[in-house]
């Protein structure tokens, strides 16, 4: 993995991040753990290189994008992007090589989230947002949506109307509803061309999964 991140600041920042994660007040669900952060960082690195963005800012933004975690049913959950962005300047000032990028990285972190409703104002911010959204799509996204739902007590799907044909969507109660409510809309809102290309692949994977699930649920009903 080190070879994928050729930045002198990477290991010190990762070590500090590990300490931060170990001391957090809320235990992270399986979808927002260090693995998620590192996957977003790898995607951000790839997108940055393909888009010609500043890779240092993109990868650092990805590493710090979930610096503040609140469970999805916590009242501060929609505010975590801004809460994380507020911490970013201090983290960057304490990391040799990132001092001059603090503003750009904080802006990317502030605008990355779906629930925060932020609009990226730079290419680097667009890369970080796309990288995080790619994690909600595809085979990884399928695993993460059910893990997140389980973390706050959602069931997999409504036992009698899984596809919400005769009821309003409720993704707080049924994880499957989150595909229609959010995940299947992400592809259309990707900000970079490279992100869109990857999102297209991942959208196809999700639709294949959903078709298989529909078939299985129909077989048993």
């Amino acid at each position, binding site marked *: 993995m080190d070879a*994928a991140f050729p930045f002198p600041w990477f290991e010190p920042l990762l070590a500090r991040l590990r300490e931060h994660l170990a001391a957090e007040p809320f235990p992270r669900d399986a979808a927002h*753990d260090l693995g998620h952060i590192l996957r977003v*960082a*790898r995607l951000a690195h790839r997108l940055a290189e393909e888009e010609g963005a500043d890779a240092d800012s993109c990868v650092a933004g990805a590493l710090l994008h979930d610096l503040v975690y609140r469970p999805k049913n916590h009242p501060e959950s929609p505010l975590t992007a801004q809460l994380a962005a507020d911490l970013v300047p201090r983290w960057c000032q304490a990391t040799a090589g990132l001092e001059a990028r603090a503003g750009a990285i904080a802006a990317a972190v502030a605008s990355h989230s779906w629930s925060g409703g932020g609009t990226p104002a730079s290419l680097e911010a667009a890369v970080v947002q796309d990288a995080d959204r790619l994690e909600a799509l595809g085979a990884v996204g399928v*695993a993460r949506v059910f893990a997140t739902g389980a973390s706050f007590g959602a069931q997999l799907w409504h036992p009698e109307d899984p596809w919400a044909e005769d009821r309003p969507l409720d993704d707080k109660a049924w994880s499957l509803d989150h595909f229609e409510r959010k995940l299947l809309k992400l592809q259309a809102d990707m900000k970079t061309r490279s992100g869109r290309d990857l999102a297209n692949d991942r959208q196809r994977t999700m639709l294949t999964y959903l078709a298989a699930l529909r*078939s299985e649920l129909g077989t048993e009903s």
Partner: protein
Amino acid sequence: MTNSTANNQGVSPIRAPDTEKTRSGRDLAIDRQRTMLTYLAALRAELGAGS
């Protein structure tokens, strides 16, 4: 998803078609095994995608 959860896909579920006792059960299990293998191939590609 944790590594241990992902690794479990290689233990019991993938062997399911050999252990079903009825022909109908085996046919359905083969379809579902295909679905799982398709899913795992996509997951493997994605986990390698950024690295």
